[in-house]
């Protein structure tokens, strides 16, 4: 009895270990395969639910909406958040530092920032999505309309009449 339950526990342990170290293949829209740990892949709610629903982990997951460059960067984030612990104060501080550097680098390349934002939305990676949308919001914050137009390529197409109407509404709102 004692040995039996011991063996069962050991088997469960082994299985647990295996699933913990299971590798998952993600394929970009250019056909490039990225092999990541399951813990890393589970940062994405989209992939997490496919894995939990018994999706074919062995065949991997094609991601037709994400290119290789973007996927590589997204995986960098998932690896950091999925594979590392964040229990102690120091560990959490290290992760916060990673996020700060990660987003600062993205912020310098706006077009890439939007690609990563869209990928984070598509893959439902909540932390990464919040990080990127906050960064875009910070770009808008405190700017004049003219500065916002320049920053995001917004064409000024309001006629004098439009402006008048907006002003009218503005006094009400």
């Amino acid at each position, binding site marked *: 009895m004692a040995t039996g339950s011991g063996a069962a526990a050991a088997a469960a342990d082994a299985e647990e270990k295996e699933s913990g170290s299971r590798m998952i293949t993600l394929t970009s829209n250019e056909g490039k395969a990225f092999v990541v740990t399951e813990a890393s892949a589970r940062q994405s709610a989209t992939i997490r639910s496919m894995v939990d629903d018994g999706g074919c982990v062995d065949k991997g997951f094609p991601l037709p909406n994400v290119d290789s460059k973007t996927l590589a960067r997204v995986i960098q984030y998932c690896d950091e958040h999925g594979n590392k612990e964040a229990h102690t104060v120091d560990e959490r501080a290290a992760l916060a530092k990673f996020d700060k550097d990660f987003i600062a680098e993205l912020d310098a390349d706006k077009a890439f920032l939007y690609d990563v934002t*869209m990928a984070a*939305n598509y893959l439902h990676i909540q932390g990464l999505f919040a990080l990127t*949308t906050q960064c875009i*919001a910070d770009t808008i914050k*405190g700017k004049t309309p003219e500065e916002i*137009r320049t920053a995001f390529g*917004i064409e*000024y*197409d309001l006629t004098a009449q*439009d402006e008048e109407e907006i002003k009218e509404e503005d006094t009400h709102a």
Partner: protein
Amino acid sequence: MEVAAEASGAAGTDILLSLLPEILDDILTRLPLKEVVRTCCLSRGWARRWESASGLDVRFRGFYSAGAVAGVLARCAAPVASFDIEVRPRLRPRAAYWLRALAEKRVRSLQLAFGSSRADEHGVFPGVGRAIYACAELSNLYLRYCEVPRPPPPQPGQGSLFAGFPRLTRLALNSVKLPFAGAGALLERVIAGAPDLADLLLVDVTTGVVAGGEKKVVEEEPEAWAIRAPKLHSLTLWTPAVDNGGRVAGELPLLNAANMSVDAFLGTEDFLDTLWLVSRVKVLKFSVRDREMMRRIFVALCWKTTGSENYKL
């Protein structure tokens, strides 16, 4: 020329408008309300874009116009994440309209802080609209310096009494009057009807009918009501000088911090029971107006509560 510009479409070059709507919504909800509304003058495509962003935080402080509040509430999309306002004395009558609009927009967090005025008659508080009972999605409710009306009578065939706000996690009432019979029972239902309530603040909350006007308070036993909130982390309980009948009942196993001032029933059995129920907290702040009484309580505390780490009296 103009036709050509319109045909090519602003969205083609406008990076933000070419993002998926849900992404842009998320970005907009991260901006202060003023800046969200101001996006209307960026371009034609932006004129009404902000109105469809759900989950906005609507916040007014200092000098704002009543028209600005009404305009935003009329135009913004549901659900409204939060509505946080300091109600200037002149704008008090508007609060009822705002609440009606907010109930319709399924507001989740409501903070109404009424400002007082020198013209206020002593003991007469500004009223808050009945529509507050229709804000069924509330997870946070903060009211300061106001009078809450009796809940609407039950609709025929639709349950009986107002059952509370099931999603509430924080309830804070500061200088709030509930001047009607059954007010204590109502508070009891609201607190018990919120299974995830974590933060409760009741400061100078008066309940029940004051018969015979201001001066002639009929010396009656206050209607007894119970605070039952098993998931409470933080409790601030400052009873008014006249006992409102509210007592902590039942265990508070998750309580971290308690801040109490309960002179109204100091020295009674109820007081000891209350002390016993909160005695396991980490941080306990106890204020007593009577100095001699305070010393005796301190002795009692030191004797009873060995598990706590921090007392402030």
